[in-house]
């Protein structure tokens, strides 16, 4: 069993009580504590302005406990990628931002897509999952 941990620390002085929130999880397969996610797709791409691209080319098994990490390595603060799933807007990752989300891929149309805005965005991504359907040749 592979063991992968994902931890986050959020700090902020927005409130009078300076906050520091931490959380850590071991990335397990759906509904179990006995078996960790054991597959990964990890890459880096440059995405030119304009067109929308599927970030994950394969089709992960639907409705599992997959985790998706995306970071925008762009430096210009006006650059961002728009994240959509199944053509529905989720959010924007501006230069330097990252996200770590559960990814359901509940059917073949539930692709996660990115659209580059402002200029060519440099995107790092990792999908930790428990299986994908490869395209037969």
């Amino acid at each position, binding site marked *: 069993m*592979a*063991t*992968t*941990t*994902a*931890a*986050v*620390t*959020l*700090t*902020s*002085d*927005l*409130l009078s009580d300076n*906050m520091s*929130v931490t*959380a850590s*999880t*071991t990335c*397990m397969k*759906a*509904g*179990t*504590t006995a078996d960790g*996610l*054991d597959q*990964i797709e990890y890459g880096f791409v440059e995405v030119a302005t304009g067109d929308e691209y599927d970030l994950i080319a394969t089709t992960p098994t639907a*409705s*599992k*406990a*997959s*985790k*998706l*990490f995306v970071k925008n390595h762009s430096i210009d*603060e*006006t650059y*961002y990628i*728009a*994240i959509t*799933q199944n053509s*529905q*807007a*989720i*959010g*924007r*990752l*501006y230069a*330097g*931002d*990252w*996200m*770590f*989300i*559960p*990814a*359901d891929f*509940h059917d073949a149309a*539930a692709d996660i897509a990115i659209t580059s805005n402002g200029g060519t965005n440099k995107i790092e991504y*990792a999908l*930790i999952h428990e299986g994908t359907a490869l395209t037969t040749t």
Partner: protein
Amino acid sequence: MATTTATLTISSTDLLSDELALSTTATLTGAGNSTGLTGTTGLARKTVSGGHAQYTLFDGSDYTADKAHKLYLKNTSTTASEYFLITVNAEDVGRLYAGDWALIPWSAHDNDCDIKIDPSANDMTLEYMLFTDE
């Protein structure tokens, strides 16, 4: 200006032949600028006693559209099979299983862009915090 940072570490010694040790920090700023995010709900917890049904956690119409809001979520359950199904803009984004957390960018791009949660069992507790770009 307030400063809010988010640091992520993903690590594994046996997922790949090469040890995975990914670490990154983001200073959370507004859309298209370097000003720190200006608002937060603070850290909150909600126990959903009614079980399997969809509940609105944040209403898209309450927040400025197409901004750089960030949402932190954590499923505090310790029962492995229990999850929250997270939906944004009526799209099922993913399942947050026991102990899992997420940091999600949220554009709140129109009134329909709500964030909703659907617990898989009764009496599940979600921890959450929204950082807003208003």
